[in-house]
């Protein structure tokens, strides 16, 4: 599998929370027509669009592991049309400061290129330049007449940021939607390895939707599967000036294994053991709250799931230039496969101890 081209294709695809079709279709294609179909026993999709990729294990009463990575990206939505210009609101947590002068694609009756307008300095009030422009004061210019705009665009049409995926130095890739399509690619990397490994546990790699709006896809997919173990694969902050070294992690030093309320202590230990067994470099993050990733939902599905969280370090999260190390991504996939190998019924029994 060409991991670089998959990452590029996936992050350049369109799929804001609640409208993930174009992106999910790439995954479905890969696992029904592409080489992925040889790696799994079954693929299905639920009513909200979550994709379930099922890889059987070799045990009799196999422990059930659910891995979850979300495919939705943050974006914008048309709230009104004013004299041919579009007014917008956000889908998910967008930092409005990164939007000025950004090119976007408005998914109307056809895809339209738009520009988020920025008032030139010459026309600004003296105190304007000291304040961030608010989202409700921005407009999108489509370069079309008001009549054309009215005939093509509807209130509620989703908008994505236009950004290609770009290779920087040292295998660092930069693009939009790395959060969390990088996680999705890590799941696929894991499946590509599992096909050659002996493992007792049965694995469900779930590509979730609407995570950015409150881990919604994770709630319904974990209810459906009700697994023994539920692990979220997401991104965490990569290092940059102004962040201390316990808030942000180095790129190229491997996946981040998280400990905290949303991680079962034995799953935390098991991930470290798996990393050691596979000679995989890793970093540790301590999180004080269970919020922020699919793990939040996985943990409280039905009568409770033993949950965990593994993250890929990512610089400039929620901008269109999210940057990660391809090596970290590959190693995350490898860590997940190694983890699966370590899980047997005895481990699951032991989760309810003491």
């Amino acid at each position, binding site marked *: 599998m060409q991991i670089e081209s998959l990452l590029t294709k996936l992050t350049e695809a369109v799929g804001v929370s609640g409208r993930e079709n174009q992106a999910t279709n790439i995954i479905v294609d890969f696992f029904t027509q592409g080489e992925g179909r040889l790696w799994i026993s079954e693929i299905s999709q639920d009513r909200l669009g979550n994709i379930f990729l099922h890889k059987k294990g070799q045990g009799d009463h196999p422990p059930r592991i659910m891995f979850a990575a979300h495919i939705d990206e943050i974006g914008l939505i048309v709230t009104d049309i004013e004299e041919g210009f579009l007014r917008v609101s956000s889908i998910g947590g967008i930092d409005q400061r990164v939007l000025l002068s950004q090119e976007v694609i408005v998914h109307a009756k056809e895809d339209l290129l738009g520009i988020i307008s920025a008032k030139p300095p010459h026309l600004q009030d003296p105190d304007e330049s000291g304040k961030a422009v608010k989202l409700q004061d921005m407009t999108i210019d489509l370069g079309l007449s008001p009549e054309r705009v009215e005939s093509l665009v509807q209130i509620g049409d989703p908008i994505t940021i236009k950004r290609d995926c770009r290779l920087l130095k040292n295998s660092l890739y930069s693009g939009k939607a790395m959060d969390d399509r990088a996680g999705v690619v890590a799941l696929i990397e894991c499946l590509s390895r599992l096909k050659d490994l002996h493992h007792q546990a049965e694995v469900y790699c779930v590509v979730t939707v609407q995570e950015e709006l409150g881990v919604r896809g994770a709630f319904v997919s974990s209810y459906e599967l009700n697994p*023994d173990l539920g692990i979220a694969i997401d991104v965490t902050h990569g290092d940059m000036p102004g962040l201390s070294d316990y808030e942000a992690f180095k790129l190229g030093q491997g996946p981040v294994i998280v400990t905290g309320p949303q991680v079962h202590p034995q799953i935390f230990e098991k991930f470290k053991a798996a990393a050691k067994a596979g000679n995989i470099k890793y970093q540790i993050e301590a999180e004080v709250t*269970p919020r922020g990733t699919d793990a939040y939902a996985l943990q409280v599905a039905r009568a409770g799931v033993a949950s965990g969280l593994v993250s890929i370090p990512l610089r400039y999260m929620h901008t269109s230039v999210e940057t990660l190390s391809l090596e970290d991504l590959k190693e995350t996939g490898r860590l997940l496969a190694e983890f699966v190998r370590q899980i047997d019924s005895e481990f699951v029994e032991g989760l309810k101890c003491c």
Partner: protein
Amino acid sequence: MLLRELCELNAVSSREDAVRAYIRNRITEKVETVTTDKLGNLLAVQGSGNTGPKIMLTAHMDEVGLMVVGIDNSGLLKIKTVGGIDERVLLSKRVVIGPNRIPGVIGAKPIHLQEKEEREKPVKLPSLFVDIGAKDKADAEKEVSIGDLAAFDVKAGGFGDRMFKGKALDDRVGCAVLLNLIENHYDFPLYYAFTVQEEVGLRGATVAAFGINPDLALVFEGTSAGDVPPAKKHQQSTRLGKGPAISFMDRSIIVNQALIERLVKVANEANIPFQFRQSTAGGTEAGAINQSQTGIPAGVLSVPCRYIHSPVSILSLDDFENTIKLADAFLKSIERRGLPV
């Protein structure tokens, strides 16, 4: 003494092992079964074969505290709060870290070296640290790890006139009430849930309720008593010495009126003093239980505590004993008259 022993154990949200083990030891002989679920809730059953409504009693084992999120080169530990703590109470306190109870102190700049303006502003969390006396990072890493949880280091015991002081009264007092009730036996199926991670989002109760699916649940809490000057009467929420507090509403639940009426009736019949929890702020496990599946009627009975979520809180032992009495009377009323809802 039960309350003292419970308060001196450390169980910051997500690492409730010490309290879980203590409770398990005390109750194993008194119940049919004791199990731990995947989140760490301790679940016990009495009378599962009885006819009658399925009742669930809940108290949470976890307390608010701190987590070690980083160790800097000098050996000082960077911390963040777990659960809602006003960071202003942290300065100059002692803590105990991890399962090995490593002692540490939250240091503060001496007053001699501060500017006047400095003293007027609280020290923010990123500037706070825990000192365990380590020489450097490697030295610190011998004793503590990133992710370790730290609890306040406070001795619990009698105080003033029929009062009790200690850390984690929220919700060791609830656990103590349940440990008293568990000595009795009632003639309906009774489920005791000692839950985890209440302070970080009612996590344990959410899954316990799904697993048990009772007909009615009663949650036991330590709740804020604001009867300290200059608070006006309507801002106090509850007062020490006025009896257990019955909630009519909080951020997570509007308690079923018939359930409140039964608690009030039972208290009046047995001459047990009680008060209403006047504040509607804060969420409780009753809300998580109430919203489970097709809905479960739930209520909250609390022991008033001053200064909750800080290193030292205070309660009235009379309120504690009356809470046990009221709960017992309520459960007996279910035996005699069935469910109120």
